[in-house]
């Protein structure tokens, strides 16, 4: 049997395989680069960037949940300029697709960041309209179709030839409405899902464990929600999807592809097993081989609903 073709095309960008560690779980790549060669990955999304440096939220920022976790990091990052100066020269030399993730307080800020990143030669920009942990912008842009469209248009207008992928929030009544708004505004791809808003409370102190009271839920617990939403969006919008949310193994990744994803994000599973993304790439290849799949892209949207 010939080798399985693992490559996929996301927003016109070729990834050597569909596995992509997601923003906020992978720093700027350096830490997990100690465990494996980053060129094994299809790509990865860097920690969310903002126009100006951000300190993030006060601790505690982490709470464990059944098969998952809450976080309220709050977009701590050095700012887009420091990223381009200090991190990008190292990242651009990697043989993998490095995706810049951005969040703005205003549509104009998204535009400014897109301009800088596009000029620097970043291959793909992920526009975060769905961070649950910041007060301004963030989640609001991702929960109202007209605001999501406005941000998408502004990003596209300033991104030059660099494709723009819009990251959607699951904290909405109908995710397809937001997806359609982003698509109509010119998005080249969609990524979903961001974290689900959640909360935990310490019984003794009666205080929420997170200092911000609430945070974003991720981990294996959210996989079924993510699959459902990817499936809905894939059915509603003709754009490639980076599907993420609770994926921890190659089998989870196959499910995500069948639900309609073109590429598959992995996040908090990496905290449990630093090698999880590499194992997923290998497992995906084996799974395709044993199931007579010549190219992994054949799986996208292959679920057969009743």
């Amino acid at each position: 049997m010939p080798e399985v073709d693992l490559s996929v095309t996301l927003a016109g960008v070729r990834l050597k395989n569909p596995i992509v560690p997601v923003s906020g779980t992978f720093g700027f790549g350096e830490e997990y680069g100690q465990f494996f060669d980053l060129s094994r990955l299809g790509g990865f999304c860097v920690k969310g960037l903002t126009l100006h440096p951000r300190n993030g939220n006060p601790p505690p920022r982490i709470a464990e949940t059944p098969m998952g976790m809450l976080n309220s990091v709050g977009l701590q990052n050095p700012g887009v300029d420091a990223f381009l100066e200090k991190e990008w020269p190292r990242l651009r030399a990697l043989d993998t697709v490095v995706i810049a993730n951005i969040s703005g307080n205003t549509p104009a800020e998204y535009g400014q960041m897109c301009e800088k990143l596009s000029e620097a030669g970043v291959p793909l920009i992920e526009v975060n309209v769905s961070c649950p942990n910041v007060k301004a912008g963030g989640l609001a842009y991702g929960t109202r179709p007209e605001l999501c469209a406005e941000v998408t248009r502004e990003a596209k207008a300033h991104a030059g030839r660099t494709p723009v992928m819009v990251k959607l929030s699951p904290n909405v009544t109908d995710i397809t409405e937001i997806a359609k708004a982003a698509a109509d505004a010119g998005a080249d791809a969609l990524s979903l899902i961001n974290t689900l808003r959640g909360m935990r409370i310490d019984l003794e102190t009666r205080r929420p464990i997170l200092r911000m009271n609430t945070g974003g839920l991720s981990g294996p617990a959210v996989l079924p929600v993510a699959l459902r939403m990817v499936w809905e969006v894939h059915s509603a919008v003709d754009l490639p999807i980076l599907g993420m949310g609770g994926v921890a193994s190659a089998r989870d990744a196959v499910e995500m592809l069948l639900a309609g994803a073109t590429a598959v994000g992995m996040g908090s599973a990496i905290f449990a097993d630093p090698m999880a993304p590499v194992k997923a790439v290998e497992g995906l290849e084996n799974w395709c081989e044993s199931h007579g799949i010549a190219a992994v892209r054949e799986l996208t949207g292959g679920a057969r609903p009743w």
Partner: protein
Amino acid sequence: MPVRQSCKLVSKVPVGPNTWQFVLEAGEMVGRTFRGPGQFVHIACGHSRLLRRPISVCACQADVPEDLLSVVFEVRGEGTAWLARREVGDSLDVLGLLGNGFQMERGGRYLLAGGGIGVPPLYGCAQFCDGRAVAVLGFRSAQRAILLEPFGKICEGAYLYTDDGSLGKQGYVADGVRAVLDKDKNFTAILACGPKPMLRGVAEAAREYGVPCQVSMEERMACGVGACLGCAIPMADGTMRHVCKDGPVFDAQEVDWNA
């Protein structure tokens, strides 16, 4: 560069109420990643829990056929309860050694200040300076006191405090640190590990007496390697630093004690 290692549990001893000392065979982890006493390991606590548990190393040594490391932990929640149910011969999924330990000079003399479950990591410090150390150890009560004998054996002196006076003197670790420094300030540094209020008290005492002080901090943690920015603590200069990658040991003067 941290190592992920399947470690065999070779010894399991109760050292206090709900408190266990594990000795693990750790492959070449110690030889490859040891930077100083006070580093930690990140231990997976069963398949049904996503996050590993960070636990400071008590003592470790490069050894043949495998490096050995010991940890002392208290059962605090479901993860550590799972860990406490492991038996000798079981294997644990361990990431380590992580973080930067205490910065210690060969030939230095140290004042070790430990509170509760913060006491064990200081044992590695006492070993590192060949016992050229004075220990001030504090516990809530006599029943909770741990590792008194090993510290008593290895250190020049060990002073004991309990919150309720049921063992040693009644008082806090910071009181003990002041009592020692009143008579003897000839220490390279104070090395402290314990709950945050205790560390704050020790840091204050260190500042009053003009002795350098390093503190080992705790925060809820996810990745353990500096990627997720979960375990942030605010610094006096207004920046955030991370227990897993920048710490767990910090210069006491750099920490924002009012945060």
